[in-house]
Structure formats: C-alpha cells, structure tokens
C-alpha cells in the first residue's frame, strides 16, 4: 500500500505556494468546513480524538493542550507558532514553510477558531530568510483574498497573522523562551507553572504549536479524526515528517505513518548506509536524544516506542552514523553545540555543558585521565532535572548515552591519545 502523504504532497511544486493553486487542490476546505459547519468545541474534540501530538518534539496531545486554555479571563488569547526549528538534524518545518505555506496558514485558522484566537505570531528562526520571504508572500496573498483579516473566509471571524523573525538562538525554540523573545527580550525560559496556556504571551493565555502540528489540521477537519488516528499507531495519530541525515545515501524529508520502522526509513527511503559501510549508531530524534547502537535500532518510530528504548522521537530528526564515525568526536561536536546554546540562566546547564565540552576536548587532545569518564557521568547526573527548561536534560541524555554505550572508544582515546576509528573526521 502506498504511503499517504498528508503534509508533504506539495513538496517540490512551486505552484503550491500560490493561493489559487492551493485552493483548487482542496486547500482551505478544512478551515471552511470548521468555520461553516462546526462549533469550536467540535473542532477541539475532533483534534483530541485524532491523537495528533505535538510534532515540535515533546509529543504532547494537541487537543489537550488547547483544552487547557481558559476562555473567560477577559484577556485576548494568542497563538504562537513555533517555526524556530533549530534542533541539530531537523529541517522538516523548513519544507512546509518553503513549499506549502498555505497549509500552515489553514492550520492556524483552524486552531484559532477552535480556541478563540484573533492574533497569531509565527516565530521563524532568523536563518530561514528565504522560507520567511515565501511565507510572508503567502500571508500577504491570504489577506488580499479575504482568507485572513476581518472576515476569515467570508465568515464572522477575524484573525491577524504576523511573521516574526528570530535572530539566532536555539533556546528560543523552547516554548517559554520563544515567548520571551517575542516580547523583545533575550530568550530565557520561564519557570512553570504558570503554564503558557494560562499565562503566556503578554501575560495572556497562549497556545504554542509547531508548524507541522498545525499543518496536519486541514486534513483532520476534512477526513475526520478516526481516519487520522487509524493511519498512525496507538495514541500516535497520523504521519510525521522525518528529517533523515548523516551517513545515508539519500538524506531528505520523508513522511511516514507514526509507528513505521526505523530500518524502513533508513534502508528503503534513505537508500541505505553511505558508502555501503556498516551501520554503527542512530540518533532517532535530534541531538538531544540518546544515541542508539546498531543493535538497538530495530524500533518503531513513534513517541512511546522511543521512550521505551530510553531515547526520544523528539523533532523527528534521524541522524545516521556509519562505522567511520568516532563516537567521542560525535559527542564532542554535540556538546560544543549545547555549550554554545545554553542560555546561561541555570547554573547546572551553563556550567555543566561548558565543563563537559572542556573534558571532551581534553580527551580528544590526549590530556585526559581515566577518571574523566567518571566525571562526565557525574556531571550528567547533576545536569538532569536541575534546570528550568529541558536543554540541560537533553544535553545530559545525549552525552551520557555516548559515554555509556561506547565506553571503549572513550577509554582508547584516553589511553592512547588518538583515534582508532577515523583520524580524518
């Protein structure tokens, strides 16, 4: 059976960026149906029953997130769309922004109608200049054609959508860091509670949803929650975009039902391992996820299976490493990133990521002692559960997995002061 493409069907077709083309191919039918025929509560229930989960990384059920929002505070309710895609290995939302911006706008309309939102901000990472230009052109066209603005799709419902560009900070993809950044401050995450659903942007109730999550809504409205839930697996509705990269022959974005096998993604869609070498390890959900050894890679790609494998599906970024990749250097690369991107607010993260990077550097330079492995694991413990946001936990989960699963490579580096895997990388 061919795999149904729910959000990637228009990828690589530049015509789909135009409103008229999108509309003539079923576009805005889902939003039209929601506004014409359904109450906001019915829309929320439909999303709840579809088992759509947050595809930014956390996998929280979308309908439940919406249901938390209080409607009677007398304050406006905001939607903040998270397009700050920055988790290393992740590039799937870029495809939606670039190739199918109207699908995102349609999803925004559906969410806004369900929750009673009249202002939405799309926070796009600063490096995505071209995708932001394409999205802005789609927003402008949607306003001109009466799809957005005072009377959305001709109905008695108003919605303003604004694109807001970030400026180069990984932490702004963390939902409360994103809100701080939108308010014009540095992106320091907020202590929760209060949760953003209650006290979010400008101290008002706020929904924060990822680009891909919203892009799924139009088809859920048209085809119904049961149809969507049946495509995925238990408690994981529908498909998701997987961003495949690293040592594979055909890196790219592939849309598969949740619950598909990791091996199918790598070998069928990705064409197998680069240079026909042996598979060594896979990161299943972005740099923050624990690495899986070759023996651990026979898993299903859904949120619950990855947790069972003591890793996470995260942002759907699958990074493949073949036998040429030194795991000490891989950990060093990832910790350079986290040390650079720690926002500096919480001591365990600010100091921990920097210390770990320094220790890994001295291991690579041949200046380490066997005790350093012990220090690394001790720092990992001190970085877990001790900070405001999940950056520290993700960084700890990541480097701890390299040290524990590939200990002999770390020991070799410490003992011999050189690499026995690949001096070249």
């Amino acid at each position: 059976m061919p795999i149904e493409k729910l959000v990637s069907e228009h990828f690589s077709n530049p015509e789909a960026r135009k409103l008229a083309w999108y509309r003539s191919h079923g576009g805005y039918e889902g939003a039209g149906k929601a506004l014409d025929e359904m109450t906001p509560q019915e829309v929320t229930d439909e999303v709840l029953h579809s088992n759509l989960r947050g595809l930014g990384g956390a996998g929280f059920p979308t309908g439940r997130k919406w249901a938390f929002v209080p409607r009677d505070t007398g304050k406006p309710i905001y939607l903040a769309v998270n397009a700050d895609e920055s988790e290393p290995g992740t590039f799937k939302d870029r495809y939606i922004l670039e190739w199918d911006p109207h699908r995102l706008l349609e999803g925004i309309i559906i969410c806004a109608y369900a929750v009673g939102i009249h202002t939405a901000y799309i926070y796009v990472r600063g490096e995505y200049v071209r995708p932001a230009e394409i999205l802005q052109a789609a927003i402008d066209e949607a306003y001109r054609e009466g799809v957005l603005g005072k009377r959305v799709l001709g109905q008695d419902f108003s919605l303003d959508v604004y694109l807001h560009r970030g400026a180069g900070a990984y932490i702004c993809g963390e939902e409360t860091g994103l809100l701080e950044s939108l308010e014009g401050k540095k992106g320091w995450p907020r202590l929760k509670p209060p949760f953003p659903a209650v006290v979010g942007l400008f101290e008002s109730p706020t929904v924060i949803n990822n680009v891909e999550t919203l892009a799924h809504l139009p088809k859920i409205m048209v085809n119904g929650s049961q149809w969507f839930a049946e495509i995925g697996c238990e408690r994981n509705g529908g498909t998701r975009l997987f961003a495949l990269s690293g040592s594979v022959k055909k890196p790219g974005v592939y849309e598969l039902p949740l619950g598909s096998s990791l091996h199918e993604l790598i070998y069928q869609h990705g064409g197998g391992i680069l240079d026909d070498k042996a598979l060594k390890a896979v990161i299943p959900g972005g740099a923050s996820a624990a690495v899986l050894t070759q023996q651990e890679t026979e898993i299903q790609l859904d949120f619950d299976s990855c947790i069972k494998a003591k890793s996470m599906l995260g942002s759907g970024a699958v990074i493949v490493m073949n036998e040429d990749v030194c795991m000490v250097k891989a950990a060093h690369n990832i910790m350079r990133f986290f040390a650079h991107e720690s926002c500096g607010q919480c001591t365990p993260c600010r100091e921990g990521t920097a210390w770990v990077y320094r220790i890994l550097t001295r291991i690579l330079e041949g200046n380490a002692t066997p005790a350093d492995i012990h220090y690394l694991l001790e720092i990992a413990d001190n970085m877990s559960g001790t900070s405001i946001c999940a950056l520290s936990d993700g960084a700890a989960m990541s480097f701890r997995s390299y040290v524990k699963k590939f200990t002999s490579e770390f020991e070799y580096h410490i003992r011999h002061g050189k690499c026995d895997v690949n001096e070249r990388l």
Partner: protein
Amino acid sequence: MSAAFEFTPENQQRFEEILSRYPRKRAAMLPTLHLAQQQQGLITGEVELFVARILEVPVVDVREILTFYTLFFRRPMGRHHIRLCMSISCWIRGANQIKDYMTRHMGVESGETMKDGSFSWEAVPDCLGACEMAPMIQLDKDFHGSLTPDKIRHILAEASKHSPGSKDDETKKHRNAKTN
C-alpha cells in the same frame, strides 16, 4: 563619533507598520534591529541609542539583545557573509575538511573579513537546518549544499559578481532544495 542614526523615510514607515503588530513597543525589538541592520549593515552604538529611544527601553536592554542573539553584527562584515554549518550532520559529511579549505581559500580565519571587504565568513556550531544538503553554507540569504572545494570556488566567484539581494541573487533561490 559618527552621525546619529535615523531610519530612511521608507524604513520609518515599515517600522511603524511593525509597531502596529504588537500590543507593546518592546515586542518590536527583533524586527526593528533586523530592519536597522538591513539599512546600516551592522548595529553601531548610534543604532543602539536610536532603537532604545524609539522603543522606549534603556539602551542597556538593547545591548543585552545584541549580545544574546548571534545574527546581529556589531562590527563591519564583508559585502557577502558566509556561515559554514559545523553541526553534527554536516560534520559527519566532512564539514571539517570544508572548513580547512575555506580557511586556505579565503586567506582569513573563521570570524574574519577578507582585506578587500568582499567576504566575511564564520564556522558556526549551530545547525542551520539544511542537513539534507550537508556539508552546507549559508551565503547571505541562500543555502548551498553538497559542498566540494570546486563548488565553493564556483559559488564565491558567482557571488562576487553580484551584490547581496540583487535581482540575479533572487533567481537563484531554492535551487538547492531537495525532496523525496
């Protein structure tokens, strides 16, 4: 001391449109700084004072933003700026070799500007979000991937014929986008 910074009339209008999007002036911080950098090429001390004044925030708050976010330049850069992604997927596909080549070819280290002012470049630790084309760079607005020394030479030669954001530049957008 250079002259005080002001928006051009056209940018002043754009700024006012930006302000209208938010219930608070301060929320316009990043878009206002992007606009100022687009006009001036960098964020000077004068620009900081100007932005603080029009957004009604202490100037130290503007400085805090500039030192927190990485896309704002506080010193002059080349006419074209290049970011080389050094993150995990690009590293697996040979970003270190590309970095060595860039250093030799450009004749200046990462973080520096060529003497003639044509190019500045930096190897960045954060992922630029285009791992399917690893190893890759961002040159001004555009992503270029599957890099080899030959390809880099070609890309730089092409870029040096045009100024950033010119019409020719526009036509090249997305030529690297790949899909399944």
